[in-house]
């Protein structure tokens, strides 16, 4: 399958990328790892007029510890995140999630910034960013994750705005990501992330709505002393997931509850 024709330009700096995006207009797209974009282009579900290739902007490929923050550059590949000693020490849940994105070939190409900017409902990093109150840094501003994911494939990014970094808090207490799927390399049918931090729990849900979801009701129940099983019953509160080929809305809500219990229990070392 051959993608529709497009213009191609390499950017050597974030400023140049932004200028090129402005020049080619709103139908231009940034090309990072390309592992969501290129499949969509081959199916002609996406037909960008131009691709701005940012793979040459080396300063976007970094992992930095910054006090109680962990700064992950937009061009950092999943494989780098998964193997990073800093990530394993400061935010091991992120390393765990990175190891379960796609397969080796996908992890060698796919990037943090690409997943965040693409905002697929089944993306794994957006869930973590939302539940941990991460910041999405662009060439123009810093956007809290809760204000970033607007709708399916829709973010707060402007047409000439480029994600440069995602800033997570350090959190290295009990944690678990349970990604439920039919095939190893597949997207999550539903995913649940649990992270204990600052004495409380953060619970995030993947693919149960157009954007990632923070399970506030579960967090509050746990705060009040509820056991995992009891608190997890609240995981589907207020959810209205869309059905798809793999799961009905009811099944996704069921999975949200079951996987939330598993994530908390496994984070605590129980099975």
């Amino acid at each position, binding site marked *: *399958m*051959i*993608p*529709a*024709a*497009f*213009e*191609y330009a390499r950017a050597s700096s974030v400023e140049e990328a932004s200028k090129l995006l402005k020049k080619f207009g709103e139908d231009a797209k940034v*090309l990072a790892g*390309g*592992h969501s974009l*290129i*499949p969509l*282009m*081959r*199916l002609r579900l996406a037909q960008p007029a131009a*691709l701005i*290739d940012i*793979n040459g902007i080396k300063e976007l490929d970094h992992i930095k510890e910054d006090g109680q923050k962990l700064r992950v550059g937009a061009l950092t590949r999943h*494989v780098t995140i998964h193997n990073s000693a800093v990530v394993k020490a400061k935010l091991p849940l992120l390393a765990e999630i990175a190891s379960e994105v*796609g*397969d*080796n*070939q*996908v992890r*060698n*190409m796919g990037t943090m910034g690409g997943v965040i900017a693409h905002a697929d409902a089944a993306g794994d990093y957006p869930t973590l960013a939302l539940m941990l109150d991460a910041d999405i840094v662009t060439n123009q501003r810093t956007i809290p994750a809760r204000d970033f994911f607007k709708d399916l494939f829709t973010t707060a990014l402007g047409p000439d705005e480029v994600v440069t970094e995602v800033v997570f808090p350090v959190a290295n207490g009990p944690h678990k990501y349970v990604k439920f799927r039919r095939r*190893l*390399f597949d997207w999550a049918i539903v995913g649940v992330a649990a992270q204990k931090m600052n004495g409380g729990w953060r619970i995030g849900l993947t693919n149960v709505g157009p954007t990632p979801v923070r399970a506030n009701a579960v967090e509050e129940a746990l705060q009040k002393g509820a056991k995992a099983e009891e608190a997890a019953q609240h995981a589907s509160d207020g959810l209205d997931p869309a059905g798809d080929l793999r799961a009905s809305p009811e099944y996704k809500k069921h999975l949200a509850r079951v996987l939330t219990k598993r994530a908390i229990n496994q984070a605590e070392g129980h099975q």
Partner: protein
Amino acid sequence: MKHKVATTVNGRQHEHEVEPRLLLVHYLRDNLGLTGTHIGCDTSQCGACTILVDGKAVKSCTMFAVQAEGRSLVTIEGMAKGGELHPIQQAFWDEHGLQCGYCTPGFIMAAAYLLEQNPNPTEDEIRKGLEGNLCRCTGYVNIVKAVQSAAKTMSATPAKKATVTAGGN
């Protein structure tokens, strides 16, 4: 507008003017005549088109040829040296790690990357390492055996391993 792409493929340098939308796998097959890299699914799932780009396993159907500018690639054609099969190829032969053979080039390249990262993988690590490649004939059992056998051969003769990452003939 066409763009120049200069690459090193299996140790040989190539330069072409290509349309940006040309996928790397089509460039290898149609421009360079290297048809050992197969197209299986066209949806980035099956891994039949796996090659090494600067030593990393990549699905060449999910990269544009223009992105390969300045990079060093190894395809299945770059594995055998001087008429002698690479240990991974030999192991797939010996262990009957294929039936129809369509997925095999991708499996061999993915296995080459896996063994470069982890020279003595467990069965679980092999299965996880090859999760990006689909085989509809073998049921994977003999593929796992082949990778285990190749790992043994390659750790016994480390020189065999080095040729993969160097990518030269």
